[in-house]
Structures are given as structure tokens and as C-alpha cells.
């Protein structure tokens, strides 16, 4: 049984699309305490001895299984740093759903810093989904500073979907990936900031083995007076291919700094970067208005589509 109150359940729905207890392995954390855990024959979850987080161990050859590890904070004033280490066995194929929701109605800041380390075995496939969400009208800030480290063995692949659409006041995301031969990393980041929010997203991807590929794509919208920095660096140390793209819509008095960068240390490293920032085109609004939408509805549709 999960020990969650109504606010916590709502946060879980937002970050993990969960309306009930998920199938498979899970670990629910609410206000710095364990709220529910389930393990399976192939996926074990154990708390670290020093209490700083959990280890998730996925047996080699585990297929079509999932792990959910959502975190919710509904008390004002909590500040925590949690270490979650994933050991994904060779030839496995799993989905990992993480995410953090903070509801802060108080005056003190609430902060969750999740440090996720992935050790992905040979030829294993991982789909990783992480959503961040904030709510509550207190003066206390909702702060999330995730660190993700990915260590990929030969032939492994990882697809990361990271989404932060609403309510997080401050975020500083750091992602590091080390890829061996024929490993494949795909990152899809979706970010929207509003009010006076500030978001930093920083990637360092090192392509170390022959045939390694990385595709890091970010789409973001900065509204009101919010500020964003996207800093993605792909380094090619072997015959490899890498692509990074940052595509942003700027609105109101938003601020966006996009710094895609490439570093090649091998003559057969093929690296490409793209970045574009612009406002919503007037003819896009007009087109949707000719379908009967108001200007505001048209704007919402354009942003929703862009962030899909």
C-alpha cells in the first residue's frame, strides 16, 4: 500500500501519469520518507546503508519491465539530496520512470536534488522518462537541481525524455554521459519557464568508442520574465557521430541563452549543432484564428505542439 495524501497523489499523477500503483518495480518517496516499494524477480531496489538513496539492480536479460521511482514534496522547507544508482544488466530492455513534484504552499523553500547514476550494460536498452512539476502558491521557492550521469557499455542504448513544463522556480540540471563503442544516446528535453523562473540545462556527452552516437535535442519556451540557459557540449574522441539542437520560443520579456558546442579529438568524429530562438510567427497565429481559435487559444496550441 502507498502512504500518500491527496496532494501527493496529484503530484504523482502529474509527474508519472500514475493513477494507481504501477505494475512492476517501484519506489515512492514522499517528504523524504519511503512511501511504498515493490521489487520483482528481476529488479531489486535496496536502500543505501548510509540512507542517502537507493540502488536499483536490474538483472541481465530483463525484458519489458519497468521501474517507477517518483518523488514528491508537499511540506514547505524540505531540502534533500538523494543518490539513486541504476545498474542495468546486459541485454536487458527496460523503462525507468522518475520525476519529482513539489507542492509548496509555505514560506520556506523546498528543494530536491536527485543524483541519478546509470551504469548500462552491454547491448542493454533503457528508456528513461523524467518529469518535473511544481505547484502551490506559497512564497517559498520550488527548487530542483538534478544531476544525471550515464555510463554506457558497448552497444547499449538510452533514450531520455526530460520534461519540465510548470511551476519549478529554479532548476540547475547537469547531465554527463560517457559512451563506449556503438552505444547510442538520445535526449529529448522539453522545458517551459514562466514568471521569474530560472532554468539551466547543461550537457556534457563524451563519445569515446567507435560507432557511438548521440542526439541531444531541446525545445523550450521562455515566458514572462523567466530565464533559460542551454549549454550542450558533445565531444568526439573516436569515429562517432553527434548532433545537438536547441530550438526555443521566446515570449514577453523572456531571456534565452543557447550555447551548443562541439569538440572533436578524432578525424572521423562527425559533429553537428543547431540552435534557433524566435517568437511565435504572426502567420501561425492567423492561421489558427482562421480555424476559429482566439489568439490566446492559438498561442496555447502552438506552444503545446512545440513542446510535444
Amino acid at each position, binding site marked *: 500500500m502507498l502512504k500518500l495524501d491527496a496532494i501527493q497523489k496529484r503530484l504523482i499523477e502529474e509527474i508519472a501519469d500514475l493513477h494507481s500503483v504501477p505494475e512492476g518495480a517501484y519506489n515512492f518517496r514522499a517528504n523524504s520518507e519511503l512511501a511504498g516499494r515493490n521489487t520483482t524477480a528481476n529488479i531489486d531496489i535496496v536502500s543505501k546503508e548510509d540512507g542517502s538513496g537507493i540502488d536499483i539492480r536490474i538483472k541481465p536479460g530483463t525484458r519489458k519491465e519497468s521501474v517507477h521511482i517518483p518523488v514528491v514534496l508537499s511540506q514547505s522547507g524540505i531540502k534533500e539530496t538523494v543518490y539513486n544508482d541504476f545498474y542495468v544488466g546486459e541485454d536487458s530492455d527496460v523503462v525507468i520512470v522518475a520525476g519529482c513534484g513539489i507542492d509548496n504552499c509555505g514560506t520556506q523553500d523546498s528543494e530536491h536534488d536527485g543524483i541519478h547514476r546509470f551504469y548500462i550494460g552491454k547491448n542493454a536498452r533503457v528508456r528513461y522518462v523524467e518529469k518535473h512539476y511544481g505547484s502551490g502558491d506559497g512564497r517559498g521557492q520550488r527548487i530542483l537541481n538534478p544531476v544525471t550521469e550515464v555510463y554506457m557499455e558497448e552497444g547499449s542504448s538510452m533514450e531520455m525524455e526530460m520534461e519540465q513544463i510548470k511551476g519549478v522556480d529554479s532548476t540547475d540540471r547537469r547531465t554527463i554521459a560517457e559512451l563506449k563503442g556503438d552505444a547510442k544516446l538520445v535526449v529529448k528535453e522539453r522545458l517551459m519557464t514562466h514568471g521569474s523562473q530560472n532554468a539551466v540545462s547543461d550537457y556534457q556527452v563524451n563519445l569515446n568508442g567507435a560507432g557511438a552516437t548521440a542526439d541531444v535535442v531541446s525545445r523550450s519556451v521562455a515566458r514572462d520574465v523567466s530565464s533559460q540557459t542551454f549549454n550542450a557540449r558533445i565531444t568526439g574522441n573516436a569515429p562517432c557521430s553527434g548532433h545537438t539542437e536547441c530550438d526555443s520560443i521566446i515570449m514577453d520579456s523572456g531571456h534565452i541563452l543557447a550555447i551548443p558546442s562541439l569538440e572533436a579529438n578524432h578525424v572521423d568524429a562527425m559533429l553537428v549543432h543547431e540552435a534557433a530562438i524566435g517568437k511565435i510567427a504572426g502567420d501561425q497565429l*492567423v492561421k489558427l484564428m*482562421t480555424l476559429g481559435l482566439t489568439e490566446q487559444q492559438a498561442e496555447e496550441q502552438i506552444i503545446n505542439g512545440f513542446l510535444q
Partner: protein
Amino acid sequence: MLEIRNLSFSVEEDGIRKDIIKNLNATVKDGKFIVITGPNGSGKSTLARLIMGIEKPSAGQILLDGEDITWLSITERAKKGISFAFQQPVRFKGIRVKDLLRLASGKNLSVSAACDYLSEVGLCARDYIDREINSSLSGGELKRIEIATLLARHTRLSLFDEPEAGIDLWSFQNLIRIFEKMRNEIKDSSILIISHQERILNIADEILMLSDGTIRERGTPAELMPKLVNAGNGVCQKLR
């Protein structure tokens, strides 16, 4: 019925006033298929944009079924049953073909209904329904999707701004078939097309020949086509 009364539109360029539409009068009755033609710069696209509300006139009135809509917004006109196909359809990152068709229909359109509209414009629905309306689509594909959004709207008055512009000959044959079908199924709605294409002009109930911001001639294809072809003006060259 659409009535245009003494409509004028002017712009200022480098401090000099330029009249684009000059005291124009026209009526589009229900069940009619009207084609506006004329040389480049004659004001055809501006007229269509004025009817949709994308531009506001300097003077005159636009009435839909007797109601003055001159100062209504684009959205209000759309809700009253006017739709508009752009000469250069707009691209949207992330919005899929089925999303746009749903927005156009104004309801939660089923995938099979969305597919029917795509099939009508000669697109294999299965290949397009989940495609994003982005730069991966060709001009001809976009144009057909644009027409499909108008079909999905089922409006009283459909405006098409040069539907043939920017599409290849192969697509053009299909396009003509689409408009012939629309012509046959028009019922009590009406269609106003800006076109230079003889085959579209030939199926019109009435052709309005626009020149220098005003209607120079109007008549049935039988009356007007010989004049247009022999006139030796820009229209003639396009028709040939």
C-alpha cells in the same frame, strides 16, 4: 450570401498613400462558385484577406447574410462560417496533420474521419496523419493539407488564395479534380477562389476580373474566357 460594398484599402509606403482596393463592389450568392482572376498586384489576395479579416479596410462594408462583419475579428468571422486557405500554407513544429484537422473541425475528430479528408485531397492518409506540419512536407503536400483543413471545417464561405501556386503538374491534376468535386457538392455554401488557371476558371459560375484594385469585368466563363485569352494582358499569358 457575401456582399462587398464600396470597399477600399490603402497602405502608406514612404509617406505616399497607395490604393490597393478601390471602391470595390461584389456579391457572392449561396451555392455559387466564384473565381477572381487578374494580373499580379491587382489586389486579389488583399481582397481575400479583407474578407477573412486579416486586413482591415480603409472604407466600405463587408456583409455576411446581411450582417455587417467589417469590424469583426478573424476568429469571429471564422465562427460565423468563413474559412481561408493560404497561398503559402503555414508550418508548425510539433503540430501533426491530425491535430490541425481536429482544430479545423472544432471537435474531437476521429482518426478515420481525418483520414477521409486527407483521402479527398489525394493524400494517402496512413502516411500523413501523424506527420508534423514542418519543413519535411513539400509545398504540394502542404497545399493539399491546407485544403483538407477547409473541407474539415464545412463552412458557409470558403476562400482559396491561389491554390495552384507552388504545386507541381502532377499535383495540379488532382487539385482540379478536388475543385470539380467541390463544385458539384456545393449545396448552399459558396466558394471564392483566386486563380489564374483556365480549368478552374472554366468551372466557375462567375469570373470576376480584377485589375488595379477594382473589378474590370465580370461574367460567366463563356462570356469572359475569350476576352481574357485574347486580352494580351498578364492573365492571358498565365492562361496560355
